[in-house]
């Protein structure tokens, strides 16, 4: 080993490097492909950090290629892995050469080990819980005509985007920071954030909104006749049960849509049918 190599100060990531990587993480899925999924995205996010950590061109090319292996996870939760890998790459450069290969294996093992569990958690948390919750909140407000007709209707989509993105950006930021702070120990830290508890709580909160929604869409009849309201609500609930069963049997919503339109047409040709509720659309002209 040459004396110059001994004395060389290992490069460190600056705040700007980390910021660049964080901003690039919003493009993680751009080159989503059916072969290795987010492999390019992962390397693209790390590229500014690798530029700093590997000043020698060949070493940088090698490091970038190393991160082009198969990778697939939830785009928001990926920030935990990205942060941790950045820290580990930085640590790798402080090690003597013989130990660097071992660190590379550890980095690969962390990526492979974490991507599955955090993908499952992210899909359940964001796609199956937070987004439907925000959607239901907006839908209930639209159908309750809380802000329509009128000029304040824009509040609803803005509220939807604001609530969702607080959770989205919060998890992205938290993941990136904690990943970078804790390195490979971030796996252990993941449990303490209470994602599973949040999923349970938000799912219950969503169920409450669905209950309110079912009553809302039939409330127009209440002003006319209570008996008719009860009848319509019962019919509506029976349909909800039927459609839930169909969806549970994996019939696609698009197929059910046309089935429902067909039922509507049959009802239209039914001579003695009373007019369905119209209150939802009274403001739309």
């Amino acid at each position, binding site marked *: 080993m040459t004396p110059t190599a001994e004395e060389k100060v290992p490069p460190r990531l600056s705040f700007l490097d980390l910021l660049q990587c964080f901003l690039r993480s919003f*493009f993680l899925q*751009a080159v*989503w492909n*059916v*072969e290795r*999924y987010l*492999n*390019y995205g992962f390397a*693209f996010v790390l*590229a500014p950090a690798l530029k700093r950590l590997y000043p020698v061109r060949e070493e940088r*090319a090698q490091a*970038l290629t190393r991160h*082009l292996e198969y990778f697939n996870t939830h785009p928001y939760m990926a920030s935990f892995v990205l942060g941790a890998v950045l820290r580990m790459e930085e640590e790798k450069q402080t090690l003597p050469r013989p130990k660097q290969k071992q660190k590379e294996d550890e980095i690969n093992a962390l990526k492979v080990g974490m991507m599955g569990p955090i993908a499952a958690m992210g*899909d359940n948390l964001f*796609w199956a819980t937070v*987004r*439907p919750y925000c*959607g*239901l909140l907006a*839908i*209930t407000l*639209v*159908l*309750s*005509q*809380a802000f329509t007709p009128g000029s304040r*209707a*824009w509040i*609803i*989509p803005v509220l939807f*985007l604001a609530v969702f993105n607080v959770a*989205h950006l919060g998890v992205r930021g938290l993941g990136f920071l904690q990943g970078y702070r804790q390195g490979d120990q971030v796996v252990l830290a993941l449990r303490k954030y209470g994602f599973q508890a*949040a999923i349970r*709580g938000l799912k*219950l*909160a969503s*169920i409450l*909104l*669905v*209950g*309110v*929604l079912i*009553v809302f*869409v039939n409330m127009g009849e*209440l002003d006319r006749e209570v008996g008719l309201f009860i009848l319509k*609500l019962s019919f509506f609930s029976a349909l909800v049960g039927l*459609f839930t069963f169909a969806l549970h049997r994996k019939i696609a*919503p698009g197929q059910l849509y046309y089935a*429902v*339109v067909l039922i*509507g*047409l049959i009802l239209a*040709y039914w001579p003695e049918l009373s007019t*369905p*509720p*119209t209150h*939802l*659309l009274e*403001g*739309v002209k």
Partner: protein
Amino acid sequence: MMEHWLAITLLLGFLSLDATAAGQFMLSRPIAVGALVGLLTGHPEVGLLVGALVELIWIGEVPVGSHLPADLLILAGIATALAAELVRGGAPPEAAMTFAIGTAIPLAILSTELEGLLRRLHVRWAHFAQRMAGSGHFGTFDGVNTLVLLGLFLKGLLTAAASLFIAHLAGRLFHLLPDRVVDGLYYAHWLLLALGCSAAIDLMVEKKTSPFLVLSIVTALTAAFFQIPGVWMVSGALLAGFILTLIYAGKGETA
């Protein structure tokens, strides 16, 4: 061609990037797209209602693994543009919305197929990027991201333009429909709300949490009988949901 078609096409082209490739801030979700296209066409209420209905019916569509859900951006955007055009032409809003969403569904499926095709083409981009990384052409490696984003934007733009044109042609058929069929579309709108509630229940409710649904319906019914305004009912549900979340969050991890 539809009024504001160029503005709608550009809007949908940009928002198509948000769906997967860039950011994922949910600007491409039906509730946001419906509102934006509704504003552009001068029918914000129609946009909100179409967006809400599409968001509700497809609430259970989750992109897990390699599964590509239906392109809800095209579905909500095109349906709103068509519904606004039909309403402007004097069609009943409920029937117009049902017709417009029904027209947009096959277009959304085609757009999803096109997205799948692009993702297969992205394999070549990924291979090219790997060669560039290996040979030390880091600028070209980074440039792949921009080129792919440009490709996706063009795909979004062309899909939106073609879909708007097809929807506009289909819209002409609406005025040829017999009154009974228009009545049927009108009835179907109410039935579709039932389908939407089912989609939410299918996604959210499990056997052990079903009592919460019953409790919520009974409470909302009681509130309705006492003429409590809708916004207070939503606020009550939100507050109860918040308390439940806190209770569960306080219990920590069990799994």
